[in-house]
């Protein structure tokens, strides 16, 4: 079975617990951290590849701690035709995947930083951020 790709969303209270340790030690899972943006007392995100017989139990353990989990089977696309480079998404994007380049003040999108939280899809006033399945 190939590893499952998931995104974890932490709230400010759960971001400082040693969860990955527990997933490995207690549930015998093989974990590959693809990207992580976790800071003490702040909201955070992590993209994981998870493999192992007890993966369902392991993910339930995370959910019980208040971690939101979603499958990563989509990607976000920046439609540059529609984007007017206003910047309204850039202080909303939790990972900095969408940011303003300085001094040009143009909006750039780095898919490698994106965790598909889809906030930009909702807040973009021009509907220039799109989900690709």
């Amino acid at each position, binding site marked *: 079975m190939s590893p499952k790709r998931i995104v974890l969303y932490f709230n400010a209270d759960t971001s400082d617990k040693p969860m990955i340790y527990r997933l490995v030690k207690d549930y015998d899972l093989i974990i590959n951290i693809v990207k992580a943006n976790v800071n003490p007392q702040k909201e955070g995100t992590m993209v994981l590849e998870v493999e192992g017989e007890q993966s369902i139990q392991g993910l339930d353990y995370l959910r019980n701690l208040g971690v939101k989990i979603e499958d990563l089977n989509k990607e976000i696309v920046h439609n540059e035709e529609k984007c007017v480079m*206003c910047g309204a*998404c850039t202080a909303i994007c939790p990972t900095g995947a969408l940011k303003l380049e300085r001094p040009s003040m143009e909006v750039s999108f780095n898919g490698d930083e994106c965790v598909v939280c889809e906030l930009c899809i*909702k807040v973009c*006033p021009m509907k220039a951020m799109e989900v690709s399945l």
Partner: protein
Amino acid sequence: MGVEKTYAEINARIKSGQAVVVTADELITIVKEKGLSQATREVDVVTTGTFAPMCSSGAFLSLGHTTPRMKMQKVWLNGVPAYSGLAAVDAYIGATEVPEDDPLNGNYPGEFRYGGGHVIQDLVARKPIRMKALAYGTDCYPRREIDTTITIDSINEATLFNPRNAYQNYNCAVNLTDRIIYTYMGMLKPRLGNAHYSTSGQLSPLLKDPNFQTIGIGTRIFLGGGIGYIAWHGTQHFPSIQSVDGKDLGPAGGTLAVIGDLKQMSPRWLVGTSYLGYGATLSVGIGVPIPILNEEIARYAAATDEELFAPIVDYGDDYPSMKPGNLGFISYADLKSGEITVNGRKTKTAPLSSLPRAREIASTLKNWILECQFLINEPVQLLPSPTDGLKSNTLKG
């Protein structure tokens, strides 16, 4: 006595290809390098630009008569109601109007995916628009309904008339509450999670002529990608000069009413816009040329982001409850840096007004003038200035 130039002299220089036209960004550099007096002598026109959501926008459409004739009482364009309490086939499509079956904020936060602003963008993009109308029927206008398709070219007139655009300055919006709020200043995260602002700062038209010494009725402007005119002062035009402890923090409160032929505008510069949880609107591109008639006008036009300030306002509680005051002032230089400190806490800033598009407008307008496609109109009458003391009324009830 410094340099004094007239509109006629400046236009003569434009026509002879000798005019020096620069953007407001470029003027700042020239003043720094050569000094204000030399810059005033050299530069004839400074161009400005802004591209942002401007809700008080809309278009008058004269749809053409039907056979038999019809006095349209209710009109819908792509499902969006247009006001038709005008003559038989005239209507006004307002930027923030939404279809009657839109769930609005019933499904909070509402998406407002299509509204009057989108209709205007589709019209100017020359897309077909489904038009429906109802009427009660009269002896001279007997027809009672129609369901047809129009385009901007099939109707008689399409006139963009925006009663309030190009706000001189705007609040920097934050949220002090514990919940996410959805505003016309975008989504604001709780506890100062972000700060949104919405002008192009040192490139913004009305920040560059704080006392309305050149901007007035009849000023020819860049509007929606075409040529437009300032028709009047905008609604809620209450210009003032902000100050704290005697320090000048730049102007605020001025607005423009603008008009132009929609048929020569472009969907790149009139963009239908949706604010989550707030509503639909229209983003409008506007550029105003400022003739450098004397040193004082040049000095104001050369104001920098460090010298222009926005008030920081809490949209969680203070703004909706009409509480006066603010959380302090912040310069556009700080706002554009990406991070500011409010109430001792660092927060990320983001604009709702596109600076790359504002720059494009200022340089497009500059090129139009240099290519002699655009002359500078002397206003018929200047707009009210801060010294006129216009004050806002509030509604009782």
